[in-house]
C-alpha cells in the first residue's frame, strides 16, 4: 500500500517534471488529400499535428459506409511518409470511405477529423509521358507537331478511364502560356509560331470527371528561320500597288489639263456686251449700266407705225350711243349684220387690219373722219384705225398731193386731242367687232386709204395695244391708178375694213391697202386665203358671184357687191369696180368690202 502510493506520487512528480520539460501528447493530425491516379487505387496523405516532443506514431483507420468494420491502412510506405496507400484489393468504387488518422505517442494520442471519400471523385491521373515536339515543314510554312503518350497507369484502352489532354507553349521570355486543348488525341499541331525562336512545350491531362494532372517537364523546340509566304505575298502586293499608284500619278500629272477640263468643266461666265466688270467692282454703277443701254431701244420713232395689231373692241351700248348721232355711218351700220366671221379674233389672228371706217379719200371724209375719229375715241377698234383729218401732220404723203388719202389708222394725237381714246371710255367688248364691221359699208372700196402714222403710236400708250404681229402686218397700198375712179366717189362711210400694210415708205409711213383692193399685188397674203371665198360680183338681184380663182385673179377679179347702192342711197358707195363677170356661180351671199363673205346680209336690212 505504501509502495503504490509512493509510486503514484513519483509518477505524478515525473509527469510534472516532464511537462516542465515540454513534452505533450501529439497534436491532432489532419488528412490533407486522397487521390486515385487511375480509378483503381488511391492514396491518402495526412499531416501530423505536432508530436509533442515524443516520438509519435500515426495510424489510419477507415470503415466503409455500409459496415462498421474498421480497417487499418494496409500500406504506409508505398506512398511515402505520412501516407496510406490503398491497393486494388482494398479499393472499392462508388463507396464512401470514412477515414481517420490517429496520432499517438507515449503521452497520449490524438484523432483527426473523419473524412468521407468516394474514390471515383478523387481521380487525378499521372502526367503524360514522352512528350515530343518536332518541326514539320509544310508548303504553307513550318509548324510544330507536339505528340505524347498517355500516362502509363491509366487504362484508356478499355474505356475505364477517359483522358483529355492539354498543352501549353511559350517562349522563354513570355509571361503567359498559350494553352491548347487537344481533346482525347495524343498529338497537336501548333501553328503561327515565330521563326527563329525557341519555344517551351508542356502537356497535362485530366479524366472526364476529375482533376488535372501535373504538367510534364518542359520540352524545347526551335523554329527555323523562314519568310512566311503570306508576308512575301503582301510585300509583292504592296509593291505592285505602289507601282500602279506611281504610274497613275505620273499620268495624271502629264494630262492634268485635260483632267481638269474633264472634272471641272468650264462654266461660262456671264458675258454681257458692254458690261465692264471692273467698273462694277469700282462701284460706279451708273457708268456700268449706262453701257448697257442701247441707244434707240425701244424703237420709238421707227416702229410706232408698225404696231398695227391693236385689238380694239367696242362695246355695243356705247357704240349705239355714238352711232345715234351719226348720219354717216348709220345706214352702213344698219346694213351690217352683227355677225362677223372675224369676231373674237385678236388682231394678230387677222391678217389684215380692220379699219374702223370704210372710206376712200380724204377729201370727202374729212368731216367723216372727224366723226369717225370721235367714234374712235369711244371705241376700241380692232385696229387702231382712226379717221385722219386731212393731211397728217407728219405725213408728207398727204402733202404731196399725190392724191392719196391716207386715213389714219392710229389717230394722231398731237393736233387732235380727240383722237386719244379715253381709256375708260370704251370697254373692249369683242362682240362689238361685228358692229364695227357694220360700219364697213359694202362700198368699202379699195379706195379706202389709210395711213398708219408712225408718230401716233407712242402716244397711244394708254390704248390697249398689242405688239405688232409681223405676219399680220398688213398694208394698204394706195394705187394711184385705182384711186381716181373710186376716190371721189368713195363715201366716207364709217365702215371697217381689213387692210394690208404694203410697205413702209422712207418717211416711216405705212402704206396700207385694203384687202379689197383689186390692184393689190400678188404677194399679198390675202391671195392665199383659200378658205374664204371672194365675191366676184353682185348682180342686181343681190346675188353675189363668188370667184374661185386664186392668186393673180384676186387682183383683177375682185368685185364688190354694191349693196350700198341698193340699200343705202345716202352713202355713196364706192363706184363699183365692175369687174369681170367671168361667169362665176351666183350665190346669194353678200360680200363685204374686204372680200369676206357675209351671208347674213341677206337678211332684211335693219
Amino acid at each position: 500500500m505504501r509502495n503504490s502510493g509512493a509510486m503514484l506520487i513519483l509518477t505524478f512528480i515525473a509527469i510534472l517534471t516532464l511537462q516542465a520539460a515540454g513534452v505533450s501528447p501529439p497534436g491532432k493530425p489532419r488528412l490533407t488529400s486522397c487521390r486515385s491516379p487511375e480509378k483503381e487505387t488511391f492514396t491518402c496523405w495526412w499531416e501530423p499535428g505536432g508530436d509533442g516532443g515524443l516520438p509519435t506514431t500515426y495510424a489510419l483507420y477507415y470503415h466503409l459506409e455500409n459496415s462498421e468494420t474498421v480497417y487499418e491502412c494496409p500500406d504506409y510506405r508505398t506512398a511515402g511518409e505520412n501516407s496510406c496507400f490503398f491497393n486494388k484489393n482494398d479499393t472499392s468504387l462508388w463507396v464512401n470511405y470514412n477515414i481517420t488518422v490517429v496520432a499517438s505517442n507515449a503521452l497520449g494520442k490524438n484523432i483527426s477529423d473523419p473524412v468521407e471519400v468516394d474514390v471515383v471523385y478523387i481521380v487525378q491521373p499521372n502526367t503524360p509521358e514522352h512528350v515530343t515536339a518536332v518541326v514539320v515543314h509544310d508548303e504553307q510554312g513550318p509548324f510544330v507537331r507536339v505528340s505524347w503518350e498517355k500516362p502509363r497507369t491509366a487504362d484508356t484502352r478499355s474505356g475505364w478511364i477517359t483522358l483529355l489532354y492539354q498543352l501549353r507553349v511559350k517562349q522563354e521570355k513570355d509571361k503567359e502560356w498559350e494553352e491548347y486543348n487537344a481533346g482525347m488525341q495524343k498529338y497537336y499541331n501548333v501553328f503561327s509560331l515565330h521563326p527563329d525562336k525557341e519555344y517551351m512545350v508542356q502537356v497535362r491531362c485530366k479524366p472526364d470527371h476529375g482533376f488535372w494532372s501535373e504538367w510534364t517537364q518542359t520540352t524545347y523546340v526551335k523554329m527555323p528561320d523562314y519568310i512566311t509566304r503570306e508576308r512575301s505575298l503582301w510585300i509583292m502586293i504592296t509593291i505592285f500597288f505602289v507601282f500602279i499608284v506611281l504610274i497613275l500619278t505620273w499620268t495624271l500629272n502629264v494630262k492634268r489639263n485635260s483632267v481638269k477640263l474633264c472634272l471641272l468643266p468650264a462654266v461660262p461666265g456671264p458675258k454681257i456686251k458692254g458690261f465692264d466688270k471692273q467698273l462694277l467692282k469700282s462701284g460706279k454703277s451708273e457708268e456700268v449700266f449706262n453701257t448697257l443701254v442701247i441707244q434707240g431701244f425701244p424703237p420709238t420713232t421707227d416702229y410706232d407705225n408698225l404696231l398695227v395689231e391693236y385689238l380694239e373692241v367696242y362695246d355695243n351700248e356705247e357704240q349705239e350711243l355714238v352711232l345715234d348721232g351719226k348720219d354717216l355711218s348709220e345706214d352702213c351700220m344698219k346694213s351690217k349684220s352683227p355677225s362677223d366671221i372675224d369676231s373674237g379674233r385678236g388682231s394678230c389672228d387677222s391678217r389684215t387690219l380692220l379699219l374702223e371706217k370704210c372710206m376712200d379719200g380724204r377729201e370727202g371724209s374729212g368731216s367723216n373722219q372727224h366723226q369717225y375719229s370721235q367714234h374712235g375715241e369711244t371705241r376700241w377698234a380692232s385696229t387702231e384705225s382712226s379717221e385722219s383729218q386731212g393731211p397728217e401732220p407728219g405725213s408728207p404723203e398727204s402733202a404731196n398731193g399725190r392724191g392719196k388719202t391716207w386715213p389714219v389708222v392710229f389717230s394722231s394725237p398731237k393736233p387732235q386731242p380727240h383722237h386719244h381714246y379715253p381709256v375708260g371710255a370704251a370697254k373692249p367688248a369683242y362682240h362689238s367687232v361685228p358692229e364695227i364691221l357694220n360700219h364697213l359699208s359694202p362700198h368699202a372700196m379699195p379706195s379706202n386709204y389709210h395711213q398708219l402714222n408712225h408718230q401716233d403710236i407712242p402716244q397711244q400708250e394708254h390704248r390697249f395695244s398689242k405688239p405688232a404681229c409681223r405676219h399680220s402686218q398688213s398694208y394698204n397700198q394706195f394705187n394711184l391708178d385705182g384711186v381716181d375712179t373710186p376716190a371721189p366717189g368713195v363715201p366716207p362711210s364709217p365702215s371697217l375694213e381689213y387692210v394690208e400694210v404694203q410697205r413702209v415708205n422712207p418717211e416711216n409711213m405705212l402704206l396700207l391697202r385694203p384687202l379689197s383692193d383689186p390692184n393689190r399685188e400678188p404677194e399679198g397674203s390675202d391671195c392665199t386665203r383659200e378658205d374664204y371665198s371672194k365675191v366676184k360680183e353682185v348682180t342686181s338681184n343681190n346675188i353675189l358671184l363668188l370667184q374661185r380663182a386664186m392668186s393673180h385673179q384676186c387682183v383683177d377679179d375682185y368685185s364688190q357687191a354694191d349693196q350700198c347702192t341698193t340699200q343705202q342711197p345716202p352713202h355713196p358707195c364706192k363706184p363699183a369696180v365692175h369687174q369681170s363677170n367671168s361667169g362665176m356661180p351666183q350665190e346669194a351671199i353678200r360680200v363685204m368690202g374686204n372680200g369676206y363673205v357675209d351671208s347674213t346680209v341677206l337678211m332684211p336690212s335693219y
Partner: protein
Amino acid sequence: MTQGSRLCFAVAVLMCAFVSINGVGLNDLLERASQLSDKLHSLSTSLTNDLDSHFPPVGRVMMPRPSMCHTSSLQVPNDKDQALKVPEDELLSLARSLLLAWSDPLALLSSEASSLAHPERNTIDSKTKELQENINSLGAGLEHVFNKMDSTSDNLSSLPFYTNSLGQDKTSRLVNFHFLLSCFRRDSHKIDSFLKVLRCRAAKKRPEMC
C-alpha cells in the same frame, strides 16, 4: 468525270454506307450516349457544388447515409476488374435500370427546386430541369442501343421510388434534396462509366478513341 460516272459513284457510296450502317450506327449511338451521360454527371456535380456553397452544418449531421439511396440495392461492379468482366448487355441493362430508377425522383426534385430555402435556388431549379431533359433523351438513346445490340433478354431491375415529399420543414427539405442529389450524382457516374466501357468495347474500328 462525266455526269453518269459521278452518279454511279454516289450511289455506290450510299450503298456502302447502308450496308455498314449497323456497326457504324452502334458506335455513333454509344458515342452520343456517352456524351449525354457525361453531361448528366457534370450537371449533377455542379448542382452539388451549388448546394454545398450555402449548406448549414447541422444538415451534414442530419444527412442520411448513402446506403439509404433507393438504388443501393442494385448490384453493380465495384472495381475495374469486375466491371470489365461484365458482358455488354448486362452493362447496358444496368445503365438503363439506373436511368429508369431516377426519372421519378428527378421529377420530385424538379418540383421542389423552386421552393428550396437556398439562395441559389434559381440556378438549382434551372439545372434540375436540364437534368430531367437529359435523362429523357439518354433513356431514349439507350433504347436504341438496346435494340441495336440484339439482346436476348431485357432484364431491367426495378428500383421503385416511394418518397413523394422531401419533408415538412425547410431544413429537412433542403437536407433531403441534397441527399437525393448525392445519390443521383453517384448513380450518374456509374452510368457514365458503364457506357464508356461499352463505347470502347464497340469501337474496334477506332482504337484511337480508346
